């Protein structure tokens, strides 16, 4: 069984009735890293949000199955507990709540939903210190409010730290590479690669072939006008870089 199956998904903005996804079909195998590329406004972030369960979107047709089970009726936190993780394109600031507190609250909330006990303090500290160290995140950042006063690149690194702590089964990285300098891009990619495993799948949304030199995808999907218009190997990214999206936006029309 595939880990994630998105079947003929149609999604509208709830209040406006504006249609964003038009029969999107996509399958992610266990352990697979899939890149999603596509023009601005093609629905990449919308897909990511709908997977994570953000309110405000109406699924009018189709289904999303995780391990063969529909997740459409699950609350965002239930999806998280089942292993869905979204690294946000624009991470949100939570003033006054230290990253450390946030992470521990999130981890324990997930564990509780899964019927596991709380993580012990020493175990948690060890986990965070190790991962933060590898990602070049210092203690001061961990004590500050979540994402408050973080630079664009620091926010992206903090998202990967959260992923490393929460150990999801399917991680969606929405433009995690945008805003990163050359060194940070390498650090973040290494962080992501460390988390690759036969048990964990990833959807990497990006505009730049460059990221895919670091995080080498098993498969590349092109999204245009709310559906997958082409699927290929990692060389597809190079082709897109050379030719742009013109042919797909026309095809999809």
């Amino acid at each position, binding site marked *: 069984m595939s880990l994630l199956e998105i079947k003929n998904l149609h999604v509208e903005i709830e209040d406006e009735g504006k249609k964003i996804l038009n029969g999107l079909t996509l399958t992610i195998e266990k352990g697979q890293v899939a890149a999603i590329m596509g023009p601005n406004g093609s629905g990449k972030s919308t897909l990511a949000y709908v997977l994570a369960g953000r309110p405000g979107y109406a699924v009018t047709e189709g289904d999303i199955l995780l391990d063969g089970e529909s997740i459409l009726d699950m609350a965002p*936190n239930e999806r998280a507990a089942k292993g869905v993780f979204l690294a946000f394109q624009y991470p949100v600031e*939570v*003033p006054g709540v230290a990253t450390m507190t946030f992470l521990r*609250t999130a981890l324990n*909330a997930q564990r509780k939903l899964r019927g596991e006990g709380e993580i012990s303090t020493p175990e*948690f500290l060890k986990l965070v210190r190790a991962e933060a160290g590898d990602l070049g995140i210092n203690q001061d950042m961990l004590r500050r409010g979540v994402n408050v006063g973080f630079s664009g690149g620091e926010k992206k690194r903090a998202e990967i730290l959260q992923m490393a702590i*929460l150990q999801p089964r399917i991680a969606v990285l929405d433009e995690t590479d945008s805003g990163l300098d050359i060194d940070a891009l390498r650090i973040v990619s290494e962080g992501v690669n460390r988390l690759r495993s036969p048990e964990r799948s990833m959807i990497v949304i990006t505009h730049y072939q460059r990221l895919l030199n670091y995080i080498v995808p098993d498969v590349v999907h092109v999204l245009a006008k709310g559906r997958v218009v082409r699927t290929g190997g990692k060389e597809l990214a190079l082709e897109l870089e050379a030719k742009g999206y013109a042919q797909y936006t026309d095809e999809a029309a």
Partner: protein
Amino acid sequence: MPAVPETVDRVRQIDVDQYKYGFVTDIESEKAPKGLNEDTVRFISAKKNEPQWMLDWRLEAFRRWQTMREPTWARVHYPKIDYQDAYYYAAPKAFKAPKSLADVDPELLRTYEKLGIPLKEQEILAGVRKQGEPSQLDGDMMEGMRSSGRVAVDAVFDSVSVATTFKEELKRAGVIFMPISEAIQEHPELIKKYLGSVVPTSDNFFATLNSAVFSDGSFVYVPKGVRCPMELSTYFRINEQNTGQFERTLIIADAGAYVSYLEGCTAPMRDENQLHAAVVELVALDDAEIKYSTVQNWYPGDADGKGGIFNFVTKRGDCRGKNSKISWTQVETGSAITWKYPSCILRGDNSRGEFYSIAISNGYQQVDSGTKMIHLGKNTVSRIISKGISAGKSQNTYRGLVTAHRRATGARNFTNCDSLLIGDKCGAHTVPYMEAKNSSAVFEHEASTSKISEDMLFYCQSRGMSAEEATALVVNGFVKDVLQQLPMEFAVEAQKLISISLEGSVG
């Protein structure tokens, strides 16, 4: 921080509008006859065996009160209070001031145990040590919080003080900590000198009423140069039906003294409204410091707005000496109506006043709270940090007054007032008044009102938190600056309370 998951457990355990402290203690009590007249005042005074001067003081207040009118300027609405339809004194029957804890009625001890207020000294020691043990993680949230060693407790049940702990140890340090009814007997010179010297009997309708009928409360005197060896605490409990509670607290820090004082309160759930009109007076002499913290959790009424405590309280501190400091920290979560403005008179040169407040309203609660900083002395400094959180159908008003007198050269104030709205049926209001009669005064005011953002909640939820856990976390972040001002044990308690108060506010 560890309190958050715990909080959520607690929130899950209770149903909406189930107030944890709402039980009634079954204990026979003796009451004054219903209603209020000179005889009621005489009855209370006689019950307390008071000297003539005290009775005269009360009677004068009572006569004054009869000429006064209930204030209407606050943004709160409530049915007319019938002052004749209430009892003004209730005490557990056969009550004699206990000589030691061994003499306290076991039923009362059990009540306080249920409330989580341990009166047995050894339990306090054990309990506090356990709570105060700093977790390594506390560092992130609790940074800057002080962990106190031990807490001495004075427990007030309806109209009388039922137990005071650690009396002996305090006595050795020279600190007087006792029910005010006892202080009137044992330290009349201090009472005569200070009672009513900060909040005069004529001050306002509710304070004047309190002056006439107050039944008990706490008295603290910290002598010159003494740093009080432990936190002092009073725990107020209304048990009787139809009974008002009018306690009176007087705290004096003599030159160079320091004291930190905590106040907590709860009441049973009852359908009718009950009146609570307390007066707290603080006096700080030269170089003295008083830190006064309150966690107010009176019964707020049910989900339909029925019942709950009417809380009309006058709290004022007088920085009477030079370089003195008074700091008020309050966490207000309970009461149907809150009318409360802990204030500072900055009389001494270089004196400093602080007000840190978290006021939470949910359901049909109405809060009108804030502070007054009256700058009289030179180079006086005040600081106001107020965090209002409104949920449900509640109304939450911050009302502040900052004034600088003509001779208050170099007076400075900083005010920061933030409001957070949860849902769209509640209201937040900010009413700041500022008045400088000295041109060198510098007043700074910052204010913000925000709605708890959907994006923030979704972000937390996508990481595994439920809507309630996410709200609790966001709110705890919002009030962090004020929570840090509380002693550690209180901060943890307050944090739990905040989450419980917001129960049912997110759909």
